């Protein structure tokens, strides 16, 4: 098991990429996280996180064909690598382990 664990926001970004199924780049990732979590997200955080995830080898990126709506500029698309998937799974399992047996006041069993 890797010593390095995923941060909360890293998990969010990876999950957003997976949910977008192949159309993922920074703009829809921001939209996806905002829509799903109801929290506003700074694009800068997403860019920084994408860069870090790529450096860790958890995602890869490539440039799309030029897009007319973007003034003829390409998009930097991303996809999750197997190592990213593995770490995401580990993080989920760990949180599940932490949550198991925990009952918060006011919640039904």
């Amino acid at each position, binding site marked *: 098991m890797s010593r390095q*664990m995923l941060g909360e926001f890293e998990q969010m970004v990876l999950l957003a990429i997976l949910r977008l199924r192949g159309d993922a780049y920074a703009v829809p990732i921001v939209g996806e996280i905002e829509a799903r979590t109801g929290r506003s997200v700074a694009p800068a955080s997403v860019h920084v996180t994408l860069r870090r995830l790529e450096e860790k080898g958890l995602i890869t990126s490539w440039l799309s064909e030029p897009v007319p709506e973007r003034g003829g500029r390409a998009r930097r698309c991303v996809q999750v690598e197997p190592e990213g998937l593995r770490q995401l799974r580990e993080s989920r399992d760990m949180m599940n382990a932490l949550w198991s047996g925990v009952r918060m006041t006011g919640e039904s069993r």
Partner: protein
Amino acid sequence: VSAGSGVPRRAAAVLRRVLPADMREDVLADLEELYLLRVEREGAAGAARWYRGQVLSYATRFGAERVRGALRGGDPSAARGGPLSVISWLDWKLGARMLLKHPGLTIIGGLSLAAAIAIGAVGFEVANELLYKGLPFDEGERVVRLETRDVAATSSEPRVLHDFAIWRGALKTVTELGAARVVERNVLTGEGRLEAFRVAEMTSSAFPLTRVSPLLGRPLQPADEVPGADAVVVLGYDVWQTKFLGDPAIIGRVVTVGRIPRTVVGVMPAGFGFPRNQQLWIPLPVQDAAPREGPPVQVFGRLAPGATWQAAAAELDVVSARLAEDHPVTHAQLRTRVRAFAGRTPGDRVEWQELVIHAIILLVLLAVCANVATLVFARTAMRESEIVVRTALGASRTRVIMQIVTESFVLALAAAVVGLVIAQTIVRYAGARTTLGIDDGLPFWVDLTLEPVTIAYALLLAATAAALIGVLPALKATGAVIRRGLQDMTTAGTAMKFGGVWSFIIGAQVAFTLICLPAAAGISQEFLRDRATHSEFPTERYLTFRLSMDVEALPGDDGVPDDAEIGARRALAFEELARRLREEPSVTHVTFGDRLPAMSPRLMPVEVQQGTAEPVRLQGNYDGHIAVAAVGVGYHDAFEAELIAGRVLHAGDAGAPNRPVLVNEAFMREVGSNPVGARVRTLPRRGVAETGPWHEIVGVTADLGMDPTDRGEAEYMYSAVSAAGLDPLIVAVRVAGDAAALAPRVAVLARQVDPGLQLRDVTTLRQIVANRQMPAIIGTSVFGTILLIALVFSAAGLYALMAVAVERRTREIGIRIALGANPHRVLRTVFARAGRQLGGGIIAGNSIILVLTWRAGGGIDVNIIIALVVVSVIMAAVGVLACTVPARRALRVQPTEALRQG
């Protein structure tokens, strides 16, 4: 940015500069896309606002990275790693939020840090202004003064006009030599009012020396110094503005300085007050003076281009040696040194006092930081689970440490801002007070606003404080504890231990408070006792002023005023003024002396001879000295001092062959018998080479309490003096009602009696007492405040630490109760530990202070014992309270709840 997208151009340009090259185009395009989506949703203005906010967000994330990269001289994108790289904008935000979330810590910790930083900033600013600051002139650091001392008498010798003429011709390393002296003159100002001013009589060479050009007209010129030249004056900016209402046609106007009408030839710019803080300049008539004769002057010049300080000192030694050869009688003992006019002379040793300032500042900061660190640790301990979870989610240890340190930094920074505001207020206030207190005022180059270097110093103190209060708690909170915490998370509760270090800190804190508080209380008490000393006679009933005669008012035959004539004129004028004052309905007494009660005493060693016995040196209360004063007739009567033995001083006593003096009761006690008829004389001391003549003691009076600090225990000797023999006269007018109301009347009467009379510092004795007590009052308030802050702070720190320590045992207590333990027994274990910590501290603190008091030689004062007991009780009470509240809460926890907490 694509054309026509409408993205704010300037913001986009900033963003382009900030971003690393490899992601610049992607980010710009993405952000533009998001911007266009926003435009549709909320309009162009809102979208533009949002865009600018995003640019700021990118700038904080990538700007710091670029700076770090640039500092390392490498590729910015390679600038990763290292503790600094893990500080993010978020940490600052979190830090600010923590301030609001923990108002107790923010207020108590912040204010204590602010106080420490304010003390530091004030100390640094004052030291910097008074010790190190140079003249604000072009190459002002090369302006020098020539300081002559009589090494035998260990006093300075300012009568150097004779030498000045020789230096001017001989010195090559010091050029543009000038001389000045400050004289008091009545000046007829713009509104036709007569006011006394300190006027600089200065050689014209002083103006080019400063390299400051006049605002209007011209400075003094060599032609103005020639005998018979037109009388001229140069005005300072403030005088021109306030007394002549900034009259643009001031050049050519005639202003009467002393008795001489002088034509205004120039106005100097604002902030110029050379040589000290003068606002009027007239030519110094440089007449030939005999060695060590003539008026006292100040001599200054500028190091010649290329000349070093060593070269100047060496050349002066040569010239001084030649002077000593030529005038062995007067100059054998004289040494002249070249010194920086203002600030530090290169080559001077750093005095230990200068280092002590920084040491004290650092000590205060350390003491405060130790306290704040305790609070920060308590807060961090409460957040242990947060830290464990963050670590679980991938935060590195450095990351967590930097977050805690950043939070401390936010606190310290806020404290620095408050501290600087406090410091500025203190410096301004103290500056204004000092100007009132010092006769010749603060030098013109001293500026009473905090300098940038002081602000930098305060920020450095804040950074040091942040590191001190953040690092230790952060290290402690993220050490092995975290790993244990992670392992234990599903089974046990908290893991952070309040180990030996913190027990020690609790104990040390109690001890430290115990040591500091009685000391502070003792000092405050001294101050308060000083304040109480002077309520014995009604100070508000005395109007006082300094009276002298304008030297120019009575020129002698050769144009040089004759001291005897001026003295006679002064005495006549004073007698007439006193007569007219006594005619005023409210006035009961008019008297004078060289000082009044509540003014600083002049201290001399004396010996007493009774009959034909050997003279005995009197061991006075002022370090073996006794206080001496020269007083006029009726002095003791005016201050209601009863005669104990002998007679009072008469008008004929001044100048009588037996030189009669009065002494006070304390003097009589020291001698041991009635000293009337005995003889007394002053002995040499630093600055006074000769033994004084014998005086006959003719009477003994009650103690007057001349000095606020003497508490009626100081020995006094009053010699008789006439108004002709004293300059200036310090006059006291006793009034039946409020003395302040008489002030305008005195000025009117003085003008009627003789326009040459100079009246200065017209005020009540109460005001003088208040001014003298100002340091004591400030001292008492500062000490009182520190006392209170220290107590509150120590109590809060103690409470927080002990409360947290007990709260963390909630689960243990709950389980014990669940297993059937007796609540009292459980409580006993809680209090036993607290008792050990508190007791250790109390015993240590008390022992240290008792040993110190005992070693200091003084007996152990009842007040100290009381202070120790009170503080010990307060500390113990706080400790008990800190344990009781969480312990009671723990006892009430349901056993099932306690078990589940794990």
